Protein backbone atom coordinates (compact mmCIF):
# COMPACT_ATOMS: atom_id res chain seq x y z
CA UNK A 1 0.00 0.00 0.00
CA UNK A 2 1.40 3.39 -0.97
CA UNK A 3 1.97 6.06 1.69
CA UNK A 4 -0.63 8.21 -0.01
CA UNK A 5 -3.28 5.48 0.20
CA UNK A 6 -2.48 4.74 3.81
CA UNK A 7 -2.69 8.48 4.64
CA UNK A 8 -6.11 8.63 3.01
CA UNK A 9 -7.35 5.60 4.96
CA UNK A 10 -6.15 7.05 8.26
CA UNK A 11 -7.82 10.38 7.63
CA UNK A 12 -11.02 9.07 6.02
CA UNK A 13 -13.77 9.83 8.55
CA UNK A 14 -16.56 7.58 7.32
CA UNK A 15 -18.74 8.12 10.41
CA UNK A 16 -18.72 11.86 9.82
CA UNK A 17 -19.60 11.41 6.13
CA UNK A 18 -22.48 9.10 7.03
CA UNK A 19 -24.04 12.04 8.88
CA UNK A 20 -24.62 13.61 5.46
CA UNK A 21 -26.94 10.76 4.40
CA UNK A 22 -30.31 10.88 6.17
CA UNK A 23 -31.49 7.55 4.76
CA UNK A 24 -28.70 5.71 6.56
CA UNK A 25 -30.01 6.77 9.96
CA UNK A 26 -33.02 4.46 9.94
CA UNK A 27 -33.83 1.02 11.24
CA UNK A 28 -35.16 -1.78 9.04
CA UNK A 29 -37.07 -4.57 10.81
CA UNK A 30 -35.68 -3.14 14.06
CA UNK A 31 -32.04 -3.25 12.92
CA UNK A 32 -29.84 -0.39 11.68
CA UNK A 33 -29.93 -0.24 7.89
CA UNK A 34 -26.84 -1.72 6.24
CA UNK A 35 -27.10 -0.46 2.66
CA UNK A 36 -25.02 -2.60 0.31
CA UNK A 37 -26.84 -1.87 -2.94
CA UNK A 38 -25.14 1.28 -4.19
CA UNK A 39 -24.46 -0.22 -7.62
CA UNK A 40 -28.25 -0.20 -8.11
CA UNK A 41 -28.60 3.33 -6.80
CA UNK A 42 -26.52 5.44 -4.46
CA UNK A 43 -27.99 7.18 -1.44
CA UNK A 44 -28.34 10.95 -1.49
CA UNK A 45 -26.58 13.45 0.78
CA UNK A 46 -28.38 16.48 2.28
CA UNK A 47 -26.55 18.70 -0.22
CA UNK A 48 -28.49 17.06 -3.10
CA UNK A 49 -31.82 16.93 -1.26
CA UNK A 50 -31.48 20.60 -0.29
CA UNK A 51 -30.51 21.71 -3.81
CA UNK A 52 -33.65 20.10 -5.28
CA UNK A 53 -35.78 21.51 -2.49
CA UNK A 54 -34.31 24.98 -3.00
CA UNK A 55 -35.11 24.84 -6.71
CA UNK A 56 -38.74 23.93 -6.03
CA UNK A 57 -39.14 26.40 -3.17
CA UNK A 58 -37.26 29.39 -4.54
CA UNK A 59 -36.08 29.20 -8.16
CA UNK A 60 -38.71 27.11 -9.93
CA UNK A 61 -39.18 28.15 -13.55
CA UNK A 62 -38.63 26.72 -16.99
CA UNK A 63 -35.19 27.18 -18.49
CA UNK A 64 -33.86 28.78 -21.69
CA UNK A 65 -37.11 30.69 -22.14
CA UNK A 66 -38.26 33.46 -19.89
CA UNK A 67 -36.58 36.76 -19.41
CA UNK A 68 -37.87 36.89 -15.88
CA UNK A 69 -35.70 36.49 -12.81
CA UNK A 70 -36.75 32.96 -11.86
CA UNK A 71 -36.16 31.60 -15.35
CA UNK A 72 -32.72 33.16 -15.38
CA UNK A 73 -31.89 31.62 -12.01
CA UNK A 74 -33.08 28.16 -12.97
CA UNK A 75 -31.29 28.35 -16.33
CA UNK A 76 -28.07 29.39 -14.62
CA UNK A 77 -28.31 26.60 -12.03
CA UNK A 78 -29.07 23.96 -14.66
CA UNK A 79 -26.28 25.11 -16.99
CA UNK A 80 -23.87 25.19 -14.06
CA UNK A 81 -24.33 21.43 -13.81
CA UNK A 82 -23.31 21.08 -17.44
CA UNK A 83 -20.08 22.93 -16.69
CA UNK A 84 -19.49 20.86 -13.56
CA UNK A 85 -20.09 17.62 -15.50
CA UNK A 86 -17.66 18.82 -18.17
CA UNK A 87 -15.03 19.37 -15.46
CA UNK A 88 -15.93 16.04 -13.79
CA UNK A 89 -15.19 14.23 -17.06
CA UNK A 90 -12.42 16.61 -18.15
CA UNK A 91 -14.19 17.21 -21.46
CA UNK A 92 -13.01 20.07 -23.66
CA UNK A 93 -16.27 21.97 -24.03
CA UNK A 94 -19.75 22.30 -22.52
CA UNK A 95 -21.05 21.65 -26.04
CA UNK A 96 -19.94 18.03 -25.59
CA UNK A 97 -22.12 17.49 -22.49
CA UNK A 98 -25.65 16.32 -23.31
CA UNK A 99 -28.25 15.91 -20.59
CA UNK A 100 -30.11 12.60 -20.84
CA UNK A 101 -32.32 10.57 -18.50
CA UNK A 102 -29.51 8.22 -17.62
CA UNK A 103 -26.88 5.90 -19.07
CA UNK A 104 -29.55 3.89 -20.89
CA UNK A 105 -30.84 6.91 -22.74
CA UNK A 106 -27.30 8.06 -23.51
CA UNK A 107 -26.53 4.74 -25.18
CA UNK A 108 -29.85 4.72 -27.03
CA UNK A 109 -29.18 8.25 -28.27
CA UNK A 110 -25.88 7.19 -29.84
CA UNK A 111 -27.29 3.94 -31.22
CA UNK A 112 -30.21 5.77 -32.76
CA UNK A 113 -28.62 9.01 -33.94
CA UNK A 114 -25.07 7.96 -34.86
CA UNK A 115 -26.13 4.42 -35.78
CA UNK A 116 -28.87 5.25 -38.23
CA UNK A 117 -26.73 7.82 -40.02
CA UNK A 118 -23.39 6.02 -40.12
CA UNK A 119 -23.87 2.27 -39.76
CA UNK A 120 -24.27 0.39 -43.05
CA UNK A 121 -25.46 -3.10 -43.90
CA UNK A 122 -22.69 -5.60 -43.19
CA UNK A 123 -20.99 -3.31 -40.65
CA UNK A 124 -20.26 -4.59 -37.17
CA UNK A 125 -20.78 -3.41 -33.61
CA UNK A 126 -18.59 -4.93 -30.90
CA UNK A 127 -19.81 -5.28 -27.31
CA UNK A 128 -18.58 -7.53 -24.50
CA UNK A 129 -19.77 -10.55 -22.56
CA UNK A 130 -20.06 -8.60 -19.32
CA UNK A 131 -22.43 -5.89 -20.48
CA UNK A 132 -25.58 -4.76 -18.70
CA UNK A 133 -28.73 -5.17 -20.81
CA UNK A 134 -28.66 -1.41 -21.50
CA UNK A 135 -25.43 -1.83 -23.46
CA UNK A 136 -26.68 -4.91 -25.33
CA UNK A 137 -30.26 -4.33 -26.40
CA UNK A 138 -29.90 -0.89 -28.10
CA UNK A 139 -27.10 -2.35 -30.28
CA UNK A 140 -29.12 -5.47 -31.07
CA UNK A 141 -32.02 -3.26 -32.15
CA UNK A 142 -29.69 -1.12 -34.27
CA UNK A 143 -28.03 -4.15 -35.89
CA UNK A 144 -31.40 -5.63 -36.71
CA UNK A 145 -32.60 -2.38 -38.28
CA UNK A 146 -29.39 -1.80 -40.29
CA UNK A 147 -28.69 -5.41 -41.17
CA UNK A 148 -25.43 -5.14 -39.26
CA UNK A 149 -23.72 -7.74 -37.10
CA UNK A 150 -23.23 -7.77 -33.32
CA UNK A 151 -19.93 -9.27 -32.11
CA UNK A 152 -19.18 -10.11 -28.48
CA UNK A 153 -15.79 -10.00 -26.72
CA UNK A 154 -15.57 -13.09 -24.49
CA UNK A 155 -14.29 -13.15 -20.93
CA UNK A 156 -12.27 -15.57 -18.84
CA UNK A 157 -13.31 -17.35 -15.63
CA UNK A 158 -12.20 -14.40 -13.53
CA UNK A 159 -14.59 -12.16 -15.41
CA UNK A 160 -11.87 -10.34 -17.38
CA UNK A 161 -12.30 -9.56 -21.07
CA UNK A 162 -9.90 -11.47 -23.31
CA UNK A 163 -8.08 -8.78 -25.28
CA UNK A 164 -6.52 -11.22 -27.77
CA UNK A 165 -10.04 -12.28 -28.77
CA UNK A 166 -11.13 -8.64 -28.90
CA UNK A 167 -8.26 -7.88 -31.29
CA UNK A 168 -9.49 -10.66 -33.58
CA UNK A 169 -13.00 -9.19 -33.69
CA UNK A 170 -11.79 -5.81 -34.93
CA UNK A 171 -11.69 -5.23 -38.68
CA UNK A 172 -12.50 -2.70 -41.37
CA UNK A 173 -16.25 -3.36 -40.93
CA UNK A 174 -16.22 -2.50 -37.22
CA UNK A 175 -18.22 0.69 -36.79
CA UNK A 176 -18.27 1.04 -33.04
CA UNK A 177 -17.12 -0.71 -29.87
CA UNK A 178 -19.37 -0.33 -26.81
CA UNK A 179 -18.07 -1.58 -23.45
CA UNK A 180 -18.65 -0.97 -19.78
CA UNK A 181 -15.93 0.80 -17.86
CA UNK A 182 -16.86 -1.33 -14.81
CA UNK A 183 -19.13 -4.40 -14.81
CA UNK A 184 -22.18 -3.97 -12.56
CA UNK A 185 -22.52 -7.71 -11.93
CA UNK A 186 -18.85 -8.65 -11.48
CA UNK A 187 -17.01 -5.47 -10.52
CA UNK A 188 -14.41 -5.97 -13.27
CA UNK A 189 -12.62 -2.75 -14.24
CA UNK A 190 -11.98 -3.02 -17.97
CA UNK A 191 -8.76 -1.62 -19.49
CA UNK A 192 -10.82 0.88 -21.47
CA UNK A 193 -7.94 3.19 -22.49
CA UNK A 194 -6.24 0.26 -24.21
CA UNK A 195 -9.54 -0.99 -25.66
CA UNK A 196 -10.39 2.43 -27.07
CA UNK A 197 -6.93 2.69 -28.66
CA UNK A 198 -7.43 -0.74 -30.24
CA UNK A 199 -10.82 0.34 -31.62
CA UNK A 200 -9.31 3.50 -33.05
CA UNK A 201 -6.51 1.55 -34.74
CA UNK A 202 -9.21 -0.42 -36.54
CA UNK A 203 -10.92 2.81 -37.54
CA UNK A 204 -13.86 2.28 -35.18
CA UNK A 205 -15.41 4.56 -32.58
CA UNK A 206 -15.67 3.66 -28.90
CA UNK A 207 -18.52 4.26 -26.47
CA UNK A 208 -17.95 3.65 -22.78
CA UNK A 209 -20.82 2.81 -20.42
CA UNK A 210 -19.64 4.62 -17.31
CA UNK A 211 -22.67 3.93 -15.08
CA UNK A 212 -20.61 2.00 -12.53
CA UNK A 213 -17.33 3.87 -12.99
CA UNK A 214 -18.31 7.52 -12.59
CA UNK A 215 -19.10 7.13 -8.86
CA UNK A 216 -15.91 5.27 -8.05
CA UNK A 217 -12.90 6.44 -10.04
CA UNK A 218 -11.49 9.45 -11.84
CA UNK A 219 -12.85 9.60 -15.39
CA UNK A 220 -10.88 11.64 -17.92
CA UNK A 221 -12.53 11.31 -21.32
CA UNK A 222 -9.65 13.09 -23.05
CA UNK A 223 -6.98 10.91 -21.47
CA UNK A 224 -9.09 7.85 -22.41
CA UNK A 225 -9.75 9.33 -25.86
CA UNK A 226 -13.35 8.06 -25.55
CA UNK A 227 -15.66 9.05 -28.37
CA UNK A 228 -18.76 8.71 -26.20
CA UNK A 229 -19.06 8.27 -22.43
CA UNK A 230 -22.38 7.91 -20.59
CA UNK A 231 -23.23 7.88 -16.89
CA UNK A 232 -26.31 8.13 -14.64
CA UNK A 233 -26.93 10.81 -12.04
CA UNK A 234 -28.54 8.50 -9.50
CA UNK A 235 -25.46 6.32 -9.17
CA UNK A 236 -23.27 9.36 -8.36
CA UNK A 237 -25.44 10.45 -5.39
CA UNK A 238 -27.78 12.49 -7.59
CA UNK A 239 -31.48 11.97 -8.32
CA UNK A 240 -32.97 9.48 -10.78
CA UNK A 241 -34.05 10.51 -14.27
CA UNK A 242 -30.96 12.54 -15.12
CA UNK A 243 -27.64 11.55 -16.64
CA UNK A 244 -24.87 12.73 -18.90
CA UNK A 245 -23.77 11.72 -22.35
CA UNK A 246 -20.35 12.99 -23.40
CA UNK A 247 -19.54 12.96 -27.10
CA UNK A 248 -16.65 14.44 -29.05
CA UNK A 249 -17.86 17.66 -30.62
CA UNK A 250 -16.97 16.73 -34.20
CA UNK A 251 -18.94 13.51 -33.87
CA UNK A 252 -21.98 15.12 -32.25
CA UNK A 253 -22.05 17.77 -34.96
CA UNK A 254 -22.24 15.08 -37.58
CA UNK A 255 -25.20 13.33 -35.93
CA UNK A 256 -28.90 14.09 -36.52
CA UNK A 257 -31.15 15.08 -33.57
CA UNK A 258 -32.41 12.26 -31.37
CA UNK A 259 -35.86 13.62 -30.63
CA UNK A 260 -37.74 16.58 -32.04
CA UNK A 261 -39.44 19.27 -30.00
CA UNK A 262 -38.95 22.56 -28.25
CA UNK A 263 -35.49 23.76 -27.23
CA UNK A 264 -33.67 21.74 -29.90
CA UNK A 265 -34.56 24.07 -32.75
CA UNK A 266 -33.31 27.33 -34.16
CA UNK A 267 -36.20 28.17 -36.47
CA UNK A 268 -39.41 26.32 -37.22
CA UNK A 269 -41.76 26.79 -40.15
CA UNK A 270 -44.10 24.19 -41.59
CA UNK A 271 -41.74 23.86 -44.55
CA UNK A 272 -38.43 23.54 -42.74
CA UNK A 273 -36.86 23.42 -39.30
CA UNK A 274 -33.28 24.27 -38.52
CA UNK A 275 -31.70 22.82 -35.43
CA UNK A 276 -30.05 24.39 -32.45
CA UNK A 277 -26.33 24.20 -31.84
CA UNK A 278 -24.72 21.62 -29.60
CA UNK A 279 -25.58 20.39 -27.11
CA UNK A 280 -29.19 21.66 -27.35
CA UNK A 281 -29.76 19.86 -30.64
CA UNK A 282 -30.06 16.67 -28.54
CA UNK A 283 -32.22 18.13 -25.77
CA UNK A 284 -35.81 18.30 -26.95
CA UNK A 285 -38.52 19.47 -24.57
CA UNK A 286 -38.43 20.72 -21.02
CA UNK A 287 -35.76 18.61 -19.34
CA UNK A 288 -35.50 17.28 -15.80
CA UNK A 289 -34.46 20.66 -14.42
CA UNK A 290 -34.64 19.73 -10.75
CA UNK A 291 -32.73 16.54 -11.49
CA UNK A 292 -30.04 18.44 -13.35
CA UNK A 293 -29.63 20.84 -10.45
CA UNK A 294 -29.52 17.92 -7.99
CA UNK A 295 -26.87 16.24 -10.11
CA UNK A 296 -24.77 19.40 -9.97
CA UNK A 297 -24.92 19.34 -6.17
CA UNK A 298 -23.95 15.65 -6.19
CA UNK A 299 -20.88 16.22 -8.37
CA UNK A 300 -19.89 19.16 -6.19
CA UNK A 301 -20.23 16.95 -3.09
CA UNK A 302 -18.04 14.25 -4.65
CA UNK A 303 -15.44 16.84 -5.67
CA UNK A 304 -15.40 18.14 -2.11
CA UNK A 305 -14.56 14.69 -0.70
CA UNK A 306 -12.26 13.86 -3.62
CA UNK A 307 -12.82 10.93 -5.94
CA UNK A 308 -9.31 9.57 -5.20
CA UNK A 309 -10.13 9.46 -1.48
CA UNK A 310 -13.44 7.76 -2.29
CA UNK A 311 -11.66 5.19 -4.46
CA UNK A 312 -9.05 4.46 -1.77
CA UNK A 313 -11.70 3.85 0.92
CA UNK A 314 -13.82 1.69 -1.37
CA UNK A 315 -10.77 -0.33 -2.26
CA UNK A 316 -10.17 -1.00 1.40
CA UNK A 317 -13.82 -2.09 1.79
CA UNK A 318 -13.41 -4.43 -1.19
CA UNK A 319 -10.18 -5.91 0.17
CA UNK A 320 -11.70 -6.53 3.62
CA UNK A 321 -15.04 -7.75 2.25
CA UNK A 322 -13.44 -10.19 -0.16
CA UNK A 323 -11.16 -11.54 2.56
CA UNK A 324 -14.06 -12.05 5.00
CA UNK A 325 -16.49 -13.56 2.50
CA UNK A 326 -13.92 -15.95 1.06
CA UNK A 327 -13.63 -17.55 4.51
CA UNK A 328 -17.27 -18.66 4.52
CA UNK A 329 -17.50 -22.36 3.60
CA UNK A 330 -19.66 -23.04 0.53
CA UNK A 331 -19.54 -19.40 -0.63
CA UNK A 332 -18.13 -18.68 -4.07
CA UNK A 333 -17.36 -15.19 -5.31
CA UNK A 334 -18.41 -14.64 -8.95
CA UNK A 335 -16.05 -12.14 -10.55
CA UNK A 336 -12.46 -12.23 -9.37
CA UNK A 337 -10.80 -9.87 -11.83
CA UNK A 338 -7.39 -8.52 -10.85
CA UNK A 339 -8.69 -4.99 -11.41
CA UNK A 340 -11.95 -4.74 -9.50
CA UNK A 341 -14.32 -2.15 -8.11
CA UNK A 342 -16.18 -2.58 -4.81
CA UNK A 343 -18.76 -5.10 -6.03
CA UNK A 344 -18.89 -8.56 -4.49
CA UNK A 345 -21.21 -10.98 -6.28
CA UNK A 346 -21.49 -14.42 -4.75
CA UNK A 347 -23.40 -17.69 -4.64
CA UNK A 348 -23.80 -20.14 -1.77
CA UNK A 349 -24.04 -23.82 -2.50
CA UNK A 350 -27.65 -25.00 -2.20
CA UNK A 351 -29.21 -21.68 -1.20
CA UNK A 352 -31.08 -19.51 -3.68
CA UNK A 353 -30.10 -15.81 -3.80
CA UNK A 354 -33.70 -14.72 -3.17
CA UNK A 355 -33.75 -16.60 0.12
CA UNK A 356 -30.38 -15.07 1.03
CA UNK A 357 -31.70 -11.60 0.19
CA UNK A 358 -34.88 -12.02 2.25
CA UNK A 359 -33.11 -13.36 5.33
CA UNK A 360 -30.46 -10.60 5.14
CA UNK A 361 -33.23 -8.01 4.77
CA UNK A 362 -34.75 -9.18 8.04
CA UNK A 363 -31.44 -8.15 9.62
CA UNK A 364 -31.63 -4.75 7.94
CA UNK A 365 -29.06 -5.66 5.28
CA UNK A 366 -29.95 -4.51 1.75
CA UNK A 367 -28.27 -6.49 -1.04
CA UNK A 368 -29.33 -7.09 -4.63
CA UNK A 369 -30.35 -10.56 -5.70
CA UNK A 370 -31.10 -11.75 -9.20
CA UNK A 371 -29.46 -11.49 -12.59
CA UNK A 372 -28.55 -7.78 -12.21
CA UNK A 373 -29.88 -7.02 -15.71
CA UNK A 374 -26.94 -9.00 -17.06
CA UNK A 375 -28.40 -12.39 -17.98
CA UNK A 376 -25.52 -13.29 -20.37
CA UNK A 377 -23.09 -12.83 -17.45
CA UNK A 378 -25.12 -15.27 -15.34
CA UNK A 379 -25.18 -17.77 -18.23
CA UNK A 380 -21.39 -17.45 -18.63
CA UNK A 381 -20.88 -18.47 -14.99
CA UNK A 382 -23.67 -21.11 -15.12
CA UNK A 383 -25.69 -19.54 -12.31
CA UNK A 384 -29.31 -18.33 -12.57
CA UNK A 385 -28.65 -15.45 -10.23
CA UNK A 386 -26.25 -14.14 -7.62
CA UNK A 387 -26.37 -12.13 -4.44
CA UNK A 388 -24.49 -8.88 -4.83
CA UNK A 389 -23.08 -6.62 -2.14
CA UNK A 390 -22.02 -3.35 -3.74
CA UNK A 391 -20.14 -0.91 -1.57
CA UNK A 392 -19.82 2.84 -1.48
CA UNK A 393 -17.62 5.22 0.48
CA UNK A 394 -20.31 5.62 3.16
CA UNK A 395 -20.04 1.93 4.07
CA UNK A 396 -17.97 0.76 7.02
CA UNK A 397 -15.88 -2.29 7.85
CA UNK A 398 -18.36 -3.00 10.68
CA UNK A 399 -21.15 -3.27 8.08
CA UNK A 400 -19.16 -5.93 6.27
CA UNK A 401 -18.92 -7.82 9.56
CA UNK A 402 -22.73 -7.60 9.80
CA UNK A 403 -23.05 -9.00 6.29
CA UNK A 404 -20.80 -11.90 7.22
CA UNK A 405 -22.83 -12.58 10.39
CA UNK A 406 -26.00 -12.37 8.30
CA UNK A 407 -24.70 -14.93 5.82
CA UNK A 408 -23.87 -17.31 8.66
CA UNK A 409 -27.47 -16.95 9.84
CA UNK A 410 -28.74 -17.68 6.32
CA UNK A 411 -26.70 -20.86 6.33
CA UNK A 412 -28.18 -21.91 9.69
CA UNK A 413 -31.75 -21.39 8.47
CA UNK A 414 -31.25 -23.41 5.29
CA UNK A 415 -28.75 -25.95 6.63
Amino acid sequence: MSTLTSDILTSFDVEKLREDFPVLKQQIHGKPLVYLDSAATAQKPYAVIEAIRHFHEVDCANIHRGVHELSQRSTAAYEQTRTRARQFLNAASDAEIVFVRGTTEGINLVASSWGHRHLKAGDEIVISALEHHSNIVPWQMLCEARDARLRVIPMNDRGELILEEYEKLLNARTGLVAVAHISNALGTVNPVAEMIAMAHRAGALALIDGAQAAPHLRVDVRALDADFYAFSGHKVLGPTGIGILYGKQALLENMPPYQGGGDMIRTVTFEKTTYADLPYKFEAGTPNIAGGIGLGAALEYIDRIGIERIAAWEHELLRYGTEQLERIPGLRIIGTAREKAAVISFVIEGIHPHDIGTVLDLDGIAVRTGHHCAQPVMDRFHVPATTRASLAFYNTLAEIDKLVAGIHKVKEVFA
Partner: protein
Amino acid sequence: MVHELYQETILDHSKRPRNCHAMADADRKAEGFNPLCGDKLKLYVKMDGDIVRDASFEGSGCAISTASASLMTESLKGKTRTEALALLEKFHDLLTTDATVSDGLGKLVVFCGVRDYPARVKCATLAWHTLKSALNGADQVASTE
Protein backbone atom coordinates in the same frame (compact mmCIF):
# COMPACT_ATOMS: atom_id res chain seq x y z
CA MET B 1 -39.03 -13.24 12.39
CA VAL B 2 -37.26 -15.46 9.87
CA HIS B 3 -39.42 -18.40 10.88
CA GLU B 4 -42.72 -16.56 10.36
CA LEU B 5 -41.87 -16.63 6.66
CA TYR B 6 -39.76 -19.76 6.48
CA GLN B 7 -42.01 -22.02 8.53
CA GLU B 8 -40.76 -25.51 9.34
CA THR B 9 -42.96 -27.14 6.69
CA ILE B 10 -41.61 -24.78 4.02
CA LEU B 11 -38.01 -25.51 4.97
CA ASP B 12 -38.74 -29.24 5.00
CA HIS B 13 -40.35 -29.22 1.54
CA SER B 14 -37.63 -27.00 0.08
CA LYS B 15 -34.88 -29.30 1.29
CA ARG B 16 -36.75 -32.52 0.46
CA PRO B 17 -39.24 -31.63 -2.25
CA ARG B 18 -41.97 -34.24 -2.81
CA ASN B 19 -43.01 -35.35 -6.30
CA CYS B 20 -39.90 -33.75 -7.76
CA HIS B 21 -39.37 -35.79 -10.92
CA ALA B 22 -40.38 -35.99 -14.56
CA MET B 23 -43.48 -38.03 -15.45
CA ALA B 24 -43.26 -40.00 -18.68
CA ASP B 25 -47.00 -40.73 -18.97
CA ALA B 26 -48.31 -37.32 -17.99
CA ASP B 27 -51.45 -36.12 -19.80
CA ARG B 28 -50.74 -32.46 -19.24
CA LYS B 29 -47.42 -30.61 -19.14
CA ALA B 30 -46.65 -26.95 -18.68
CA GLU B 31 -43.64 -24.77 -18.06
CA GLY B 32 -43.46 -21.81 -15.74
CA PHE B 33 -40.97 -18.99 -15.78
CA ASN B 34 -40.29 -16.10 -13.45
CA PRO B 35 -38.34 -13.55 -15.50
CA LEU B 36 -37.46 -11.59 -12.37
CA CYS B 37 -35.27 -14.31 -10.91
CA GLY B 38 -34.86 -16.72 -13.81
CA ASP B 39 -36.59 -19.56 -11.98
CA LYS B 40 -38.00 -22.24 -14.26
CA LEU B 41 -40.39 -25.03 -13.48
CA LYS B 42 -41.89 -27.95 -15.40
CA LEU B 43 -45.17 -29.34 -14.19
CA TYR B 44 -46.61 -32.77 -15.04
CA VAL B 45 -50.22 -33.76 -14.42
CA LYS B 46 -51.87 -37.14 -14.93
CA MET B 47 -55.64 -36.99 -15.22
CA ASP B 48 -58.23 -39.69 -14.68
CA GLY B 49 -61.25 -38.25 -16.42
CA ASP B 50 -61.84 -34.98 -14.60
CA ILE B 51 -59.75 -35.96 -11.58
CA VAL B 52 -56.06 -35.20 -10.99
CA ARG B 53 -54.58 -38.64 -10.41
CA ASP B 54 -50.94 -37.55 -10.04
CA ALA B 55 -48.80 -34.43 -10.26
CA SER B 56 -45.06 -33.83 -10.23
CA PHE B 57 -42.56 -31.10 -11.06
CA GLU B 58 -38.97 -30.44 -12.02
CA GLY B 59 -36.91 -27.30 -11.78
CA SER B 60 -34.81 -25.27 -9.45
CA GLY B 61 -35.83 -22.22 -7.54
CA CYS B 62 -35.73 -20.57 -4.16
CA ALA B 63 -37.01 -22.24 -0.99
CA ILE B 64 -40.42 -20.61 -1.32
CA SER B 65 -41.02 -21.63 -4.93
CA THR B 66 -39.69 -25.18 -4.44
CA ALA B 67 -41.78 -25.75 -1.30
CA SER B 68 -44.81 -24.27 -3.01
CA ALA B 69 -44.48 -26.64 -5.98
CA SER B 70 -43.91 -29.58 -3.65
CA LEU B 71 -46.92 -28.86 -1.44
CA MET B 72 -49.09 -28.05 -4.44
CA THR B 73 -48.44 -31.39 -6.12
CA GLU B 74 -49.31 -33.14 -2.84
CA SER B 75 -52.54 -31.23 -2.39
CA LEU B 76 -53.76 -31.73 -5.97
CA LYS B 77 -54.07 -35.49 -5.98
CA GLY B 78 -57.69 -36.64 -6.03
CA LYS B 79 -59.10 -33.19 -6.77
CA THR B 80 -61.33 -32.48 -9.73
CA ARG B 81 -60.18 -29.88 -12.22
CA THR B 82 -62.73 -27.41 -10.82
CA GLU B 83 -61.63 -28.09 -7.24
CA ALA B 84 -57.98 -27.60 -8.21
CA LEU B 85 -58.72 -24.25 -9.84
CA ALA B 86 -60.77 -23.18 -6.81
CA LEU B 87 -57.83 -24.09 -4.57
CA LEU B 88 -55.60 -21.92 -6.74
CA GLU B 89 -57.93 -18.95 -6.17
CA LYS B 90 -57.94 -19.53 -2.41
CA PHE B 91 -54.17 -19.84 -2.33
CA HIS B 92 -53.82 -16.63 -4.30
CA ASP B 93 -56.15 -14.85 -1.85
CA LEU B 94 -54.10 -16.14 1.06
CA LEU B 95 -51.00 -14.48 -0.38
CA THR B 96 -52.46 -11.25 -1.64
CA THR B 97 -55.36 -10.23 0.59
CA ASP B 98 -55.96 -9.67 4.29
CA ALA B 99 -58.86 -12.10 4.25
CA THR B 100 -58.44 -15.11 6.50
CA VAL B 101 -59.58 -17.73 4.04
CA SER B 102 -57.69 -20.70 5.34
CA ASP B 103 -60.66 -23.08 4.98
CA GLY B 104 -59.77 -26.00 2.79
CA LEU B 105 -56.17 -24.92 2.27
CA GLY B 106 -54.78 -27.55 4.61
CA LYS B 107 -50.99 -27.50 4.85
CA LEU B 108 -50.86 -24.66 2.31
CA VAL B 109 -51.58 -22.13 5.09
CA VAL B 110 -47.88 -22.24 5.96
CA PHE B 111 -47.41 -19.73 3.13
CA CYS B 112 -49.43 -17.07 4.96
CA GLY B 113 -46.19 -15.30 5.95
CA VAL B 114 -45.41 -14.59 2.30
CA ARG B 115 -48.19 -11.96 2.32
CA ASP B 116 -45.82 -9.60 4.20
CA TYR B 117 -43.15 -9.92 1.49
CA PRO B 118 -44.70 -8.65 -1.75
CA ALA B 119 -41.45 -9.27 -3.62
CA ARG B 120 -41.75 -12.97 -2.81
CA VAL B 121 -45.41 -13.56 -3.74
CA LYS B 122 -44.40 -14.51 -7.27
CA CYS B 123 -42.03 -17.15 -5.94
CA ALA B 124 -44.94 -18.82 -4.14
CA THR B 125 -47.33 -18.57 -7.08
CA LEU B 126 -45.07 -19.76 -9.91
CA ALA B 127 -46.14 -23.39 -9.57
CA TRP B 128 -49.79 -22.39 -9.43
CA HIS B 129 -49.57 -20.18 -12.53
CA THR B 130 -48.07 -23.19 -14.25
CA LEU B 131 -50.86 -25.43 -12.98
CA LYS B 132 -53.43 -23.11 -14.46
CA SER B 133 -51.92 -23.33 -17.91
CA ALA B 134 -51.57 -27.12 -17.57
CA LEU B 135 -55.23 -27.57 -16.62
CA ASN B 136 -56.41 -25.13 -19.24
CA GLY B 137 -54.36 -27.00 -21.79
CA ALA B 138 -52.63 -23.82 -22.86
CA ASP B 139 -49.57 -24.76 -24.86
CA GLN B 140 -47.44 -21.92 -23.62
CA VAL B 141 -44.99 -20.96 -20.92
CA ALA B 142 -46.73 -19.51 -17.86
CA SER B 143 -45.04 -16.36 -16.69
CA THR B 144 -45.38 -14.59 -13.38
CA GLU B 145 -45.10 -11.28 -15.22
